[in-house]
């Protein structure tokens, strides 16, 4: 690798999240998008965060960089990135330097993540200058290397404007931007949502091979169980802004414990086999009413609810080696 001119963060940096709370102020009131989450992201692994739309997974991702867009607001908690510090208490300039340099971010809307009026090569240079990269030529070489690696004509891409590239190409350019400064932690927020099946597969393959090669810490946010099963070492299930379950991917997929996780897995249609085997999750995602009451967030939709679930929220507790679940029923076993 020709990265010797770029100082890198210590390898296998992890993230420690404590008591993180993010609130969105809306016309109807305050919605807790991330509600007191404690989470350890293990360095050097791919961690999948899965949940339905509105479960707070993208907000969690933005909060890890202390960059929640308006009207969202981080009300409390800490996010400690190894080699950087607490993103909540660092000064603005250090936060900015950490973004991009230590933590790369691939956008949910990576289709439109580039300035439409500037050539992509120039934007790479803007990125380099923002992070005080001395050898800008080496940076461009690095960008080219990554683009070629992802199967693109690097010279053409660097001299192009965003509108001259296809959706899949823009997504890969987004990944290049997240990797070009040798960030050790890369957050991918639904990187494949807007892509067709073939582009999806190739983007995921790129993510996997680069992760293996560089021992990156990857956080993969998705609502696609298949993507998680394919790539992630660990999986974290989010529901209504809280964590429902986490564990090694094989364990969680083979033996899901939280009724919500089980519902999610049952809802996946198989390519071979009867479509009727896929069972949709009954009920609707939590709304403002759900957050106000004391019951478990999943109470209204849970097929296995007990009396206890109506009056208390289940704590998020250890349920085996490397395994955590928030469910009274599971704990009672």
């Amino acid at each position, binding site marked *: 690798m020709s990265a010797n001119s770029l100082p890198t963060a210590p390898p296998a940096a992890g993230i420690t999240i404590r008591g993180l709370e993010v609130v969105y102020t809306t016309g109807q009131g305050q919605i807790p998008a991330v509600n007191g989450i404690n989470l350890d992201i293990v360095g050097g692994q791919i961690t999948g965060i899965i949940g339905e739309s509105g479960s707070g997974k993208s907000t969690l991702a*933005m909060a890890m960089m202390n960059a929640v867009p308006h009207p969202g607001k981080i009300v409390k908690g800490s996010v400690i990135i190894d080699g950087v510090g607490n993103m909540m208490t660092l000064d603005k300039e250090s936060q900015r330097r950490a973004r991009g*340099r230590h933590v790369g971010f691939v956008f949910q809307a990576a*289709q439109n993540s*580039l*300035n*439409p*009026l*500037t050539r992509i090569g120039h934007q790479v240079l803007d990125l380099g200058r*923002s992070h005080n990269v001395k050898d800008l030529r080496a940076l461009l070489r690095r960008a080219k290397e990554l683009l070629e690696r992802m199967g693109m004509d690097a010279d053409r891409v660097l001299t192009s404007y965003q509108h001259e590239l296809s959706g899949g190409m823009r997504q890969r350019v987004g990944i290049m*931007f997240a990797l070009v400064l040798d960030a050790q932690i890369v957050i991918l927020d639904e990187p494949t949502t807007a892509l067709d099946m073939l582009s999806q597969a190739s983007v995921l393959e790129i993510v996997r091979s680069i992760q293996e090669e560089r021992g990156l810490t990857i956080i993969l946010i998705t609502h696609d169980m298949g993507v998680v099963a394919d790539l992630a070492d660990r999986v974290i299930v989010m529901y209504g802004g809280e964590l429902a379950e986490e564990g090694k991917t094989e364990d969680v997929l083979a033996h899901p414990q939280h009724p919500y996780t089980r519902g999610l897995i049952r809802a996946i249609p198989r390519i071979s086999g009867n479509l009727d085997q896929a069972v949709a999750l009954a009920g609707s995602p939590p709304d403002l009413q759900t957050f106000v009451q004391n019951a478990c967030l999943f109470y209204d939709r849970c097929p296995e609810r007990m009396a206890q679930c109506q009056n208390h929220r289940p704590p998020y507790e250890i349920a085996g080696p490397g395994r955590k679940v928030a469910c009274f029923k599971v704990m009672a076993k």
Partner: protein
Amino acid sequence: MKNILIRLAKRIVAGIVMVLVVASFTFFLVRMMPGNPVSAKYNELIMRGMTPVQAMDAVRVMYGFIPHQPLWQQYLHYIGQILHLNLGRSISYEGVPVLHIILNAAPWTIILVTTGLIASFIVGVLAGVIAAVKRSSPVGSAITLSGSIMHGIPQFVMGLFLAYVFTTIWALLPFGAPYNAALTPGFNGPFIMSLIRHAILPVATYALSSYGGWLLTMKSSVISVLGDDFILASEVRGIKASTRLRYIAHNAILPLFTIFALSIGFMFGGSLFIEDIFDYPGLGNLLLHAIDSRDYPLMSGAFLLITVAVIVANIVADFLYSVVDPRIRR
């Protein structure tokens, strides 16, 4: 490059056609005016004792066409004269070529409006960016309010107000006339100083009354760009604040670019109220005078100039837009 030239050529041809259409329209408008100025003048000259031949010659020279020819022949003659840049002769400034009068008036308007336009554009756009970025703070609200108020005050009220404050209450600046008549016009210090001092109030009036429009347009444009995904993306990539501001400004100013170019075209219509209040001998005053004295050749000449200027500005705006926005380039 070849495509651009073809596009430009198409635009220019379309522009020429449009100029001819407007010229034809003004021609027939003049002919259909109640009272028929052409034969009125002809009759007037005969009454003064000219022979019909003399009168017809005089009218032909004045209007650029012969009144007793059939309409279509007069029309062809008129169009032919326009193609030779002959706009006929003025009635009120007896016998002076219209083109000459217009060219004399144009510099006053151009200097006045260009200075005011550029000043208001720069200040308005910068204020608009601040108003957008700080829109939830009192500073931002105050700036926006200033824009709305300035935008709401009519030009003539603004002009009279400034004139009242700075020439009557505090007699800091001169009122009326483009320069002190006691000085010899030419390239000398006192004359130039006098020019500048007389220009301050009209320019300020123009700038203040267009400032609000730029501010409000820029503010809404910046706010819409701030919501774009790539701005959030650049924040998450740790792009420097100054670079991000450049991204925002570049993207937000595009819509204003067209308005700016068109304003330059419309400036040839003169700024009627300002020139009238401050007695400035520009195109606006000329047009007022032409209307007052029923000077039809002068009127159609002025209208033609406005048409040409707007069409040219349109072509230039369209062409330059494709330079500043790569998405329009083909």
